[in-house]
C-alpha cells in the first residue's frame, strides 16, 4: 500500500518506521527536517520537507492516489485541511485526521473524515484499564456523514468505535 503521513512526530515516525518495515510504500512529510531524526537509518521510504496543507507540496511528494493518508501534525486545523485536500484533490482512498478537540473531531467525522482524538483515545484506554464503562467520545471516529465531495465517506459503519482494518471506505 502507498501510505502518506503528514507530521513526523512520535506517532508519525513510529507509524512510518513500522509500515516501511512491513513493506509498504511510505512517504512522510514534515515542515522541519529535524523531525526526520526520529526515523531509523534503516527507513527506506521518502522523508520530504514541506507543508502538508499545500496541494503542490503534496503532489510533488507523490501523495496523489495514496491508499492511506494520515494527517498527524500538532495542529488540528492543519490536519483537517491536509486531510480534506487529500480526499478532495488528491483522490486518497482512506483519510484520517488527528483532531484533538473532541467537538471538532465529531464535527468532521460527521462531514466524512475519519478522525483520531487524543483526548478520547486516552480516556478510552484509562476507562478500559480501570474496567469502567467508556465515558468519553470514542477516540477513533469513522466518518458518519458525507464529505461535500461525496466520494470518500463510504458506507457508514454501525459503530463509531474503531474502524475495522481494511474496511472499505469507497462507496
Amino acid at each position: 500500500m502507498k501510505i502518506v503521513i503528514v507530521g513526523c512526530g512520535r506517532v508519525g515516525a513510529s507509524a512510518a518506521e513500522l509500515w516501511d518495515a512491513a513493506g509498504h510504500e511510505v512517504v512522510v512529510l514534515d515542515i522541519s527536517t529535524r523531525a526526520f531524526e526520529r526515523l531509523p537509518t534503516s527507513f527506506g521510504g521518502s522523508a520530504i520537507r514541506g507543508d502538508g496543507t499545500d496541494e503542490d507540496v503534496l503532489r510533488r511528494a507523490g501523495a496523489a492516489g495514496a491508499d492511506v493518508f494520515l494527517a498527524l501534525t500538532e495542529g488540528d486545523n492543519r490536519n483537517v485541511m491536509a486531510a480534506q485536500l487529500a480526499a478532495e484533490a488528491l483522490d486518497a482512498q482512506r483519510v484520517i485526521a488527528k483532531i484533538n478537540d473532541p467537538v471538532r473531531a465529531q464535527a468532521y467525522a460527521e462531514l466524512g473524515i475519519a478522525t483520531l482524538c487524543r483526548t478520547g483515545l486516552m480516556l478510552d484506554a484509562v476507562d478500559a484499564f480501570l474496567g469502567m464503562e467508556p465515558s468519553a467520545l470514542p477516540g477513533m471516529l469513522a466518518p458518519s456523514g458525507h464529505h461535500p465531495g461525496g466520494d470518500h465517506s463510504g458506507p457508514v459503519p454501525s459503530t463509531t468505535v474503531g474502524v475495522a482494518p481494511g474496511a472499505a471506505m469507497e462507496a
Partner: protein
Amino acid sequence: MFVLVVGGGKVGYYLAKELIDSGHEVALMEKDPTRARQIADEVGSIVIAHDGCEGKYLAEAGANRADVVAAVTGDDEDNLVICQMAKHHFDVPRTIARVNNPKNESLFRHLGVDELISPTRMILGSIEQDIPVHELLHLAALGEGELELIEAHLQSGSPAIGRAPRDLDIPEGCSLFAVIRDGVASPLRPDTVLLEGDKVIAIGKQECEEMLHTQLIGDPEAAAAG
C-alpha cells in the same frame, strides 16, 4: 445584521470597526488575550478572547444566530475550519473566508465556503491588468462565488482570432457576452468575428475556466512555455 468576525489582526479589527460604524451588530473573536484586550479598549465589549475554531467558543459567541461569519485570520487552515464549523455545525447562512494561497480557493469553494476573499489573487489581478500576459484575467466573483467574470485578451496565437463565438466550443454554463475593441465595448453576437487585440468578456462557472483558456488563449501548456 449580526456579523461574527473571527481573527483580530488588522483585517478583523478594521472590519469590525467599519461594521459597527455602519450600524451592524458585531462580535469579534481573537484568541490572543493581549490583542483581544487591546481591541476591546478601542471598540468596546464585543470582543471574545477565545479561539474561534473551537465549537464551544463559537457557540458562546452566538454563531448559531449569526447572519454572516467572516473568517479573516492569517492562516488558511483556520479560516477553512471556522467557516466549515459555522456552516455545518451552526447553520450560518453566509460564510466568508480570507484565503492567502490562491491555490486553496477551489478547495474552499468545493467544501462549502460561500465567499472567498484572496488578497494575493487581487493584487495579482491588479498587476496582470497592467502587463500583458497570456492568461485569463479574473475581474470579479459573482453570485455565491460560483461564477466568475473573466476577461480574455486575444493575442497572436489565440485560436479564436478570425472566428466567431458560434464556431467556438464554449462550455455549458458559460457565456461570452461582450467584446472590447479599441476601447469600445459592444455586445458579442454569435456571428461577431473576433480580431487580434480584442478583449472578450465572459461569465461562467469556475470549472469552465480551463476550457475557456483553451478556446480563447490557446493551449495552457504552450502559453506557459511562451
